[in-house]
Every structure is written in C-alpha cells, then in structure tokens.
C-alpha cells in the first residue's frame, strides 16, 4: 500500500508530499524525501522497552513502573525542568505544559539552544515574514545568511526557495539571484551568485554596514568590514534594493555566534529598512520539524514561547535565567524530564555534567546519549509515522501529520498524560 502526501518528521521544511510504501505494517519504501527524512521514515534502532536505572545500570521494566518512577521524580523535585518538545507534535506540548504547571516546573524547548536568540530578536523588533509559498511565487533575490540548506534542509531550495518556480518566478533559479553570507564556503555557497565570506562573530558589524549603505550613508564605513571589501557590501546592498521581492533566510550562523540575539535584531532591522525601498521578508531556518510548534503552543497557553517558569503558578519568562542551559548551568534544576530531544549531545559538556548529577526521565522513540544519563527511559511511537498530530513548519504554517503504521507503542502525548495522572494521584495522597 502506498500512502500519499505524508509529512516528513525531520526538519523545519515539513515537506508534505512524501510517498510511503507500507507492507505488513512496515515501511518498505520512501519516495521524494531527502536523505535526512528518508533515513528517519525508514526507521532505525529503537529503545526496545521501558527502563529504569538501578545501581547505576538501566534495566528493562514495565510502562507502569516507569510512569510511577517518573511521577515520583517530578513530584519530589523542587525545581524540575521539562525540556525538549521539538521532535514531537503539538498535542504532546500541550500536555507537557499542563504537567509543568502541575509540578511547578520550568518548561523549555530546544529553541533555546537553537533559534531562541531569533525569538528574542523578534521581541525586540518584530519580524517581517511570509509563508514559504510567498518566497516560491515572488522572490527574485534570496539571501542565505549563516544557513546551509544544502546540508540542513536539503529540499528547501527545490520546494520553497532558490530553485522553486511559481506564479511570478516561472524561470526558477535562472530568474533569481542568490547571495550566501557565511564564515566558510558551504555547499550552499558553492551554488550562489555571490558569496560573502565573513569572519566568525562579525555578523553584527556586517549587517550594520549593509544598513548604512542601504540608507545612503555608505560613505561613513571603512574600506573593509570584518574582512569584507566595501565594494562587495555595496554590490550586495544594490542587489537588495533592486530586487522586487527579497528574502533573508537565516540559520544558526547568526544565532550561535557572538552577538546572538543582537545579530538577529539587526537583521530584522535591515529587513524593515529595506521595506522602505522594496518588498523584503525574513525567516529563520528552523531545525527540528516542530520546534516552531512548541513555541506557538507555549505562547497561546502561557503567553511566552519558551523558557517558562511555572513554579509560582503564574508563568514567568526570562531567558538567561529560566532557559534549560541556565538552570542546569547554575545547578538549580534538581530533576529533568526530556521529551523528544537529546540535550546530552546538544548542550555544552559542562551543562551535560550538571544533567548527569540529577535524576533524568527520557521520553523518546530512539536511544541517544541522553539515554546514557537517564534514570527512567520510556520508549514511544514516532510522531508522523506511528502517531498523528500537529506540527508547525519553519514559516509558522500548521499541518496535520499522519500515522502510516501502527507500532503498538504509546504516543508521547499518552506517556506525558500517564505521568500527569500519576502526579495528580500523588498530590491527592498527600
């Protein structure tokens, strides 16, 4: 049986045209997906059974015991941290926020080690954006800034950006200009019309120089900025102003470098400035397929998109204080639940060492280094393949993910709900 128009549960592109061939309850073929998506949809090593740690080793157990242990850890903690939520559906996030309220915890997503600075930049300036289809149909200039879709979002250029075709862009790549700004000549840069190599940590300076040139104050900037010749910046600024519809698509190059949210703030300001001359939009190239969705759910449920402290019953938001890395770095969190993420791999080593000191609950279909540190491990169905639900594409468009095979495993949402039930029962007992 072939199932059409399946959504890919990998990156923020959230491609929704995948064909999946299923035989006897197993995925036997995947068409149209990129290597990243295909690899995930075809499946790989899974956590086989729930596990709990005794005397330093993980032992297989029942779901009931795993839920009990998880509930006791969360209920017993003074400052529990509920983290992850990027590779699961919005329905899980809703339950997770309720659980965080119930245990007086802090809830945070992988955004805070990813595009969190972009969100802070948006808080400062707002974001002039669009859906990806708008870029596909209209954009004649595309700027990838600190983004490398050739490796991180392989179908982006074909489906939505440089190589796509649309109403006002019938020639596709030939009718467009592509600029890449990066600290190294990436695979994306190799296909650009113009590549601007900047020194690491100088995004802010380069954007500032571009803003000055765009606003007609180019005479005030020096001959080179962060290793870039003024002539190159002038050429790029000229291309921006000459475009009918320009777009800046930025990646972690901007958010992970010196300046972080200030880089984003400046880039958003550049785009606002450019709208005085022509049409321009800007967008963050979000990594995991539903990291954007957690931000949306968290905003409409708590008022804030990430790093929300619920210990006082009322939501409190202050990244830098309430983000996962801050809480762990200060050795403040005394228990951690990780849902659909792998902080052991993705946090700085020093932060991971703090994680190793506290009880950790892992909810995930796949084993990963977080498993090595977990005290309770609860395997789940893979969202988008074995469970349905909602996900938000990098441009904020929500789509419904399909279930194509039945794993018999509980979904992330069911696991969180089971833990929530037990936490409430523990509360009643007290």
């Amino acid at each position: 049986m072939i199932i059409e128009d399946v959504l890919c549960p990998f990156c923020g592109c959230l491609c929704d045209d995948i064909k999946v061939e299923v035989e006897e309850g197993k995925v036997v073929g995947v068409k149209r997906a990129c290597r990243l998506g295909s690899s995930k949809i075809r499946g790989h090593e899974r956590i086989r059974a729930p596990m709990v740690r005794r005397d330093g080793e993980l032992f297989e157990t029942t779901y009931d015991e795993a839920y009990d242990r998880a509930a006791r850890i969360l209920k017993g903690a003074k400052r529990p941290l509920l983290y992850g939520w990027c590779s699961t559906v919005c329905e899980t996030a809703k339950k997770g926020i309720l659980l965080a309220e119930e245990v007086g915890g802090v809830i945070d997503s992988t955004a805070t080690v990813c595009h969190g600075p972009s969100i802070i930049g948006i808080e400062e300036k707002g974001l002039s954006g669009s859906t990806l289809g708008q870029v596909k149909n209209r954009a004649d200039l595309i700027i990838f800034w600190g983004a490398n879709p050739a490796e991180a979002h392989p179908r982006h250029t074909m489906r939505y950006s440089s190589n796509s075709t649309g109403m006002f862009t019938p020639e596709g790549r030939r009718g467009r200009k592509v600029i890449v700004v990066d600290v190294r000549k990436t695979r994306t840069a190799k296909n650009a019309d113009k590549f601007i190599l900047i020194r690491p940590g100088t995004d802010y300076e380069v954007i500032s120089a571009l803003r000055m040139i765009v606003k007609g104050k180019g005479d005030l900037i020096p001959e080179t900025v962060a290793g870039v010749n003024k002539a190159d910046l002038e050429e790029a600024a000229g291309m921006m102003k000459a475009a009918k519809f320009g777009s800046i698509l930025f990646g972690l190059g901007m958010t992970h470098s010196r300046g972080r949210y200030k880089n984003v703030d400046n880039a958003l300001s550049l785009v606002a400035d450019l709208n005085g001359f022509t049409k321009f939009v800007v967008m963050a190239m979000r990594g995991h397929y539903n990291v954007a969705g957690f931000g949306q759910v968290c905003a409409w449920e708590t008022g804030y998109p990430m790093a929300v402290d619920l210990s006082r019953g009322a939501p409190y938001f202050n990244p830098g204080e309430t983000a996962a890395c801050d809480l762990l770095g200060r050795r403040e969190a005394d228990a951690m639940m990780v849902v659909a993420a792998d902080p052991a791999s993705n946090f700085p080593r020093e932060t991971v060492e703090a994680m190793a000191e506290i009880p950790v609950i892992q909810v995930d279909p796949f084993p990963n280094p977080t498993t090595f540190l977990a005290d309770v491990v609860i395997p789940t169905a893979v969202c988008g393949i074995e469970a349905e639900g909602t996900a938000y594409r990098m441009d904020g468009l929500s789509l419904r993910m399909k279930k194509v095979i039945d794993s018999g495993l509980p979904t992330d949402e069911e696991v969180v709900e089971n833990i929530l039930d037990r936490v409430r029962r523990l509360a009643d007992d007290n």
Partner: protein
Amino acid sequence: MIIEGGIVYDPINGVLGEEMDVSIEDGRVVEESRDGEKIDARGMLVLPGGVDAHAHIAGAKVNTGRIMRPEDGRRGTEARTKLLRPSTGYTVPNCYAIGYRYARLGYTCAFEAATPILEARHTHEELEEIPIVDKGALTLFGNNWEVLECVRDGDLEKLAAFVAWGLRASRGYGVKVVNPGGGEAWGFGGNVKGIDDPVPNFGVTAREIIRYLMRANEALRLPHSVHLHTNNLGKPGNYETTLATLRAVEDIASSRDRQVLHVTHMQFSAYGGTGWRDFESKAPEISDYFNKHDQFTMDMGQLIFGSATTMTADAPLEYGNARLLKAKWSNHDIELEESSGVVPLVYGRKNPINAIQWAIGLELALLTEDPWQMIMTTDHPNGGPFVNYPEVVALLMSRSKREKELATLHDLASKRSSLPSIEREMDWNEVAIVTRAGPARILGLAEKGHLGVGADGDVSIYDVNPEKVDPSKEHEEVKAALAGAKYTIKGGEVVVRDGEVVAVPQGRTYWVDASVPEDAEARVKADLVEKFAKYYSIQMSNYMVQDAYVTRPRVIRAGVI
C-alpha cells in the same frame, strides 16, 4: 434552573426591563423549569449573554502579538488555581485568559474576525483552547487569487462555489474582506488607493471584489453578510472611500432577514482631513448615511487609551503604522491568499489624533439612530482590549462621563468632533441591543442574543438595579457592575459567580456548511488542483482543516440547493 425576579432586558422578544423569571433546562431557555437550581436575581439586571461579533482572539497574528510582546504578557498575570489555568497578557492575553475574562464580563460568545484559509488550522487550535465561550471565525476572501480570478472572469457561480469550499476548508463562519486587492498588491510591497484602483497583475478593482463577494454571499444565503474592512482604513480623508464603497453596493439586496453588508470597526474608516495636521471626524457624515440606509450595519472599533496591539490582514496599514510610530513591526504574507501585520502602540489622551479617534467611535454610536445598525466593539485589541467594554458602555450611557473624559484629552477632540454637543445617553434596552441582541442578529445566530424559548441558556446577571441606579450620573457604579458579573450562565451552567469563574465548560465552534451545485464545485476543484500543483507550498490533501481541530462543532447549513 430558574433565575428569579430579575429585571430583564430582552430586546429581540420585546422585553424592556420587566421583572420576570427566566427558566433554563438542558442548556436552553424553556417556558418553565420545575426543578434545579434557583438563582435569586431580584433587584438585578438580567441580560442575554454578551456576544462579541468582532475580536482578534485566535490564530497566527494573535500569537505573533504574544510572541513579540512579552512585556504585554506580564501585564495580565494571574496564577493558576485548582480550577483555572494561569492567565497572562492585557492586549494579547493567553487563550485561558480570553475565556475567563469574557465570562467575567457576562459574555458567552465571541467571534475571531479574520483567518486566512491556509492558516485556519492554527486559528482552530487556539479557539479549542479558549474556555467557556462559544466561538467562530470569519474567513478572509478579499485577496485570494481564486476570488480575484473569478471576479476577473465574471464567474459568480464559480465564486460562490469557492466561497462555500473556502468556508468548509477553514471551518469558517462568514466572509471577511479586508482591504480588498490591497493585500495582494502588498505581495510586492504595494497597495490599492481606493475602490477603483486596479489590483496589479489581476486587473480587478476593490469595487468589483466587494460586489462579487456580496452577491456570492447572498446567493449562498449565508447567515452572516459580507464583513468588510474598508480600503484606505486608518488614513485621513478615508470617509470618502467608505461612503463610495457603500454607494457602490446600494443596489445589492440581502437574501435573508439581516443587513447586506457589515462594515467593521467604523471608527478607523470615518476620518476627514488631507493629512494628520487637519485630521478630523467625519462620523456625522457616516452616521447620517447609515440613518438613511438601513441595509447596512457597523461596529464601533472604539479606542481605549493606553496600550493596544494593532493586528490586521491590512498589512500595508501596519507597515505605515510602524514607520509612523517607529514601533516594533511584524508582517506575515500568506501565499495566494492574504497578508497581515502586527504593531503594538499606546493611545495617549494628549495625543490629538488619538483623542479625536476616541471621540469618533462614540459619535458613530450615538449619532446612528438605530442601535440595531451599530454594535459595540473595540476591535480587540486594535482599539484596545475587550476587557474595557464596561468603560465603553458607561460612556454610551452617560453624557457627564463623556464630558469628564473629554476634559482630560487634547482639546482637538472637542474641536474636531461633534461629541461635546451630543446629548444622547443610551438606555439599558439600547445597551442590550449593541452588546448582545444586535451582534447576534448581525451574525445570524438565531439562538444567541435573546432569552426566548429555545434560545441558548446564556444569561448575564449584573448587580445593578436599573430601576434605582441612574447610569447618567452613577456611571462608575454601572461600570463596576458590568466588569464583574454577579452571575454568568452559559448553557444553563453557572460559570461566574460574584465576578469569579466557578466552572469551565468547553464552548462550541460555529461554522457554515453551504451547499453548491456539483458542476460549480467541480469547476472550482479543477482550478484548485492546478493552483496546488503550481503555486501552493503544500499539497491540496493537507489543506483542509480536519475534524480533529473542531471537536465541538455547531454546523449551520446554508447554500443554493
């Protein structure tokens, strides 16, 4: 349940301040209820549950407002309780706060004013999280490529079929049109200048778009009329565009017992002047026109001083706001369908423009003679948050309150508007019309806005005695009573007691399923298949809002067959 001895205003059923009982059983008003709870409402004002026909409460732009405004989130913080989820926000409250605050005001129904079809799933995700109130969403059609092409080709039948399909795809309730043609022009940074300015690349005009959508709306006999946000909204001198728009559609007849066109948040469309320097009110001209044309309705879009978050599908307007005010600016264009923008701002009493805007909203409400034509809104949160409705009602009921406020404003509010000379003070019957009966009738919600047998058991009871309190003088008392209902009853259940939320049932979501001839639908589908293959960034099969997102639907049937 029996609500005993209250002083009831139920304009739809001609009840004008009578002391009487209201009985509810199985969620609906009945002749007589024998058992159940008794509520003592003696000496209190009893009204049908409030209905908000136009507010921005759910969807992508509302959430954009939350995300870009953490400073607003902090303004409305209330901790969770055993019963309630936490609340945050003033102009952009979280979903729970929206439900709780409406209920505390005695409102039981609220409609989201603008959702693009492509992002309707998101709108419904948020609507599902808003507790207590019944709700619905109006669907945006005024810049949709399929609409523009049907208008260009003069194909009314196909347009009607597309509107029916779009409502189904978005689980939407009615046809919203925002700055028709301007949203498409904004795709390349442009706008249209008036109703006869051609839309780039499509060659149609706003006049044609509005006329065709109204004709399609009436052909489908939809419960609500077209709901229009005019071109040039927010600009000095725009009253001429507004009047030209109305004159352009005078010949179109309504297919149902309701208006043929609702012009929304009129305050923003009733401006005179050639620029901000000679900016002035043209509310008298607008109201005068409405007084002579009873086929049209409007809502106030009243301005509230203090913080607001403007959010609209009129994206070029928001860009203009951001430039003018040097404010934070978010924009979001939606492929083939719409554009939108969000800009936070603060309305100041001493700002001459804001002061005049404040006066215009009140002038419109008081100069329009028939309250059924003019309902109360603040275009939440564009004019200000809906929690200020008691303030607006107090202003409508008390000339002395208006004078007191005017004295604190920039003096141009008095010089460039007619407000100081307006004597009218609304009575409770008129207030009941502009806050519940009128919005329900305008939306075409047969079971809302009244307390006749069969109506929804939605009742608000306020601790103010209409026979003893003189709203003209005791406006503070009126405002306080309306701000925290003594009781709000939703579907026969007490949800608010003494201003506090005591129960959190889940409301229903209205949407309209309109039938059209099969061949017309087939022609629309053929167009859409091509559009999805070439232009949309998603597959057609993933487009329509799935049933999972509307768990408690109230489907209203309409259509041509």
